[in-house]
């Protein structure tokens, strides 16, 4: 398909592709395999591993999305 490119849209001929996008897969592996974290020790302030690990995994999710956002903004 050869379409006329409207004026001023050359920048939009980009795509969202970036090798950095693969970072977004990390949180899935970190949280969707229960055998990795389905245990009580080591505990943290009396909170079993199962719980504090998953709460901590939120930080993994945040950092990967943040990195991908930062890089795609450039």
């Amino acid at each position, binding site marked *: 398909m050869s379409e006329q490119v409207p004026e001023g849209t050359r920048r*939009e001929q980009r795509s*969202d592709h970036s090798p950095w996008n693969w970072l977004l897969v990390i949180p899935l592996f970190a949280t969707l395999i229960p055998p990795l974290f389905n245990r009580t020790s080591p505990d943290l302030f*009396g*909170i079993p591993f*199962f719980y504090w690990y998953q*709460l901590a995994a939120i930080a993994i999710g945040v950092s990967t999305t943040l990195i991908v956002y930062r890089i795609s*903004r450039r």
Partner: protein
Amino acid sequence: MFDDVNAVQLTVFTVLFAAVSVLGFVAARWRAADDLEHLDEWGLGGRNFGSWITWFLIGGDLYTAYTFVAVPALVFSAGAIGFFAVPYTIVVYPIVFLVLIRLWSISHVHGFVTPADFVRARHGSSTLALLVAITGIVATMPYIALQLVGIEAVLKAMGVTGHIPIIVAFTILAAYTYNSGLRAPALIAFVKDTLIYIVIIVAVIVIPYKLGGWDEIFGAAEAKFAASPNPGDGVLLAGPSQLQYATLALGSALALFLYPHSITGVLASRDRNVIKRNMAALPAYSFVLGLLALLGYMAIKAGVVPIGADPEAGEPGDPNTIVPQLFDAMFPSWFAGVAFAAIGIGALVPAAIMSIAAANLWTRNIYVEYINKDATPKQEAKSSKLASLVVKVGALAAIIALDPEFSIDLQLIGGIIILQTLPAVAIGLYTRWIHRWALVAGWAAGMAVGFWTTYQIPQKKFTSPTEFTVTKEHFGGSAFPLSELGYDTTWTIYAGFLALLVNLVVCVVGTFVLRALNAPDGEDATRGSEYFADRDDPRVTDVPEAVG
């Protein structure tokens, strides 16, 4: 109606509730365009929300009052499995990150208001668009009804019974949503979320301190589950439920942004960066949700008894009341009032957005498509406003006239059926390889499997680890035993996930068959480059002249 009412709690609750209602009406003038008589204004708040508003709006939209009472209730009664809400809300953002910005771009270029608008243009199939629209409406309705269950739970804890209070609350909600559209929940979300954050931070500091620390809390939980005859509960996941845990988290994550109300929040944002930033910032709510889930264990330690429970008669009562009951026991009355208001107001934001989203589906994909093809923007806005009222009355009637259990069942199925729109909407954003009629067939197959599996799942009450009585024949949960499929295992899988797999297989096989038969493809009204358009693109207009 008002026996044993805690006057201080009720006063604080009522004052905050009233203040928020005023805000809801004032919202009509907040960042307002010249007139609200356009669907982009009423239904999408002008499509111009920045990062902060979007964060509060989507956060307030996704993390509902029902979530706030039901997740801890599940942890209270079943333990670890209830914590699936945390992985669910961790993985959802990385999964949808790239998908939503495509949806935003294409929707802004073409002026789409609903996911079904996109499906119509992309696959050139009005049948498929109608199916997606109906699925969205059907999945959303019980979700709205459940917000009322959230309000009822706090009212019960304050000693207020009967249906009149929720009728009053919903009438006010309906009035300001009609008046202000999406701007009302957007503005109220600021109050709701601020209150929620304060309450939760205080709760996770004060309550464990009062109860003697986390050791004590988890010790009490372990003791409770050890004494329980149910082999499926516990502070850790029982072996067979690990697959259920992972697939429930993943399936719920895939479903979340297919819900029309989530998409409404996304499309209301100003540009792609607002969405990307929010994908990184929204997990703050996931953290709060995780802490909230732990309130279920605190309730065990504190010896909270659900309202209506009679341990001697084996009557479990209403587990949704455990969080309000815990707050009532642990906090001074005035702060418990604040906490109850946070949950009560927490019901209003999603209920408003959901009714707007359902109303937009009705207007764009049924009213304009089949009833009034030449509707003016003003007629569209009018139709949506009226539909939002109808939707709320319907939700109210479902709770009052029918057993609330019916709404809970429907919402369980709601997540499963909305997942069946994934191939048409999410995969459709990337490829048109799947034939439009294969998408229809896949949808039908997924729906059938979703209903069949959940219908097969009974609710069990264990008398010993191997013996149980069936307390409810059908729709007793979403954990489908793989043994039903002939596998020799005790593992269970999320029914929605299974239904989606079947859907995808039918889509692929159906496409090969239809291609072999030379069935004509639908016309694609979208172009590749439009999926990357951002705000600075001349094709993206803030308020499209002719929508559609």
